[in-house]
C-alpha cells in the first residue's frame, strides 16, 4: 500500500510511501482522493517521510489535491520533505499553496 490514511476528527493525514513519478502517482492520487471524499477533512496533511524520490508528477499530485481540498475550503499541509523533494516543490512554488516542513523540523 503506497498510502496509509490516518483520520483524527477533521484532520486527515496521508502517509505516502515509495517514489512519486508518473507511474506511481495514479494509485496515490486515487487513495488520497477517496480519503478526502470519505472524511471531508478541514485539513489534510501529506506526510513525505517515506518518499525517497519525486519528480514533477509529485507536483501535479500535490496541486491536484490542493484544488480538491479548496472546494471544501480545507487546508493542505506538507511535512517531512527530504532535500530532493523540497527542491522540486520549491521550484514549483508549492509553498504558496501549502505550508511545507522539511524532514527533521518537528
Amino acid at each position, binding site marked *: 500500500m503506497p498510502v496509509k490514511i490516518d483520520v483524527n476528527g477533521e484532520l486527515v493525514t496521508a502517509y505516502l510511501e515509495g517514489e512519486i*513519478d508518473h*507511474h506511481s502517482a495514479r494509485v496515490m492520487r486515487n487513495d488520497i482522493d477517496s480519503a478526502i471524499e470519505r472524511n471531508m477533512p478541514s485539513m489534510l496533511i501529506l506526510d513525505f517521510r517515506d518518499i525517497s524520490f519525486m519528480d514533477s508528477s509529485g507536483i501535479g499530485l500535490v496541486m491536484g489535491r490542493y484544488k480538491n481540498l479548496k472546494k471544501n475550503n480545507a487546508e493542505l499541509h506538507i511535512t517531512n520533505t527530504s532535500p530532493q523533494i523540497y527542491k522540486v516543490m520549491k521550484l514549483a512554488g508549492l509553498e504558496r499553496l501549502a505550508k511545507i516542513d522539511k524532514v527533521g523540523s518537528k
Partner: protein
Amino acid sequence: MITNVLKLVIPSKSSNESFARVAVASFVAQLDPTLEEINDIKTAVSEAVTNCIVHAYKESMGNIYITVQVIDNLTVKIKVRDNGCGIDNIKQAMQPLFTTGGEERAGLGFAVMESFMDKLSVKSKDGKGTVVTMQKKLSIRIS
C-alpha cells in the same frame, strides 16, 4: 575527451521510468558526485523519460534511447531521444506551466530539467520525434 559512455534502449512502459533514472544515476555515481548532484540528474532524467512515455508515445509504444557521455571525467551529457509525435512549438512547450497533459500534469518538466542541469536543448520534428540534450558539470572535490 569522452571518458565513458552508457547507451540504453527501453520501451516506453511507465514501469521503466524508475529503472531509467536509477540506471543513469548509478552510472554517474562512478564519478563520485555529491548527493545533490546525483539527485538533480536523477530528477532531470525522470522528467525527460516520462515525457517520452506520456507525450511522445501517448497512444502507442515505442523505444526510448538514452545516451550518457562522461566528458573529461567531470561533465555528464545526457541525451534522451524518442521517435514519437514530436513537439510543434518548442518555445511554448518549454514555458513553465505549459502542458498538453491535462489536469494532473503541472507543466514543469522542462523547468525542472533547465534548473537542475547546467544546459538544456530540445530538438524536435513534428511526427518524427524529439531529442532532449542536457549537461551538468560536477563540482571538483579534493579527495
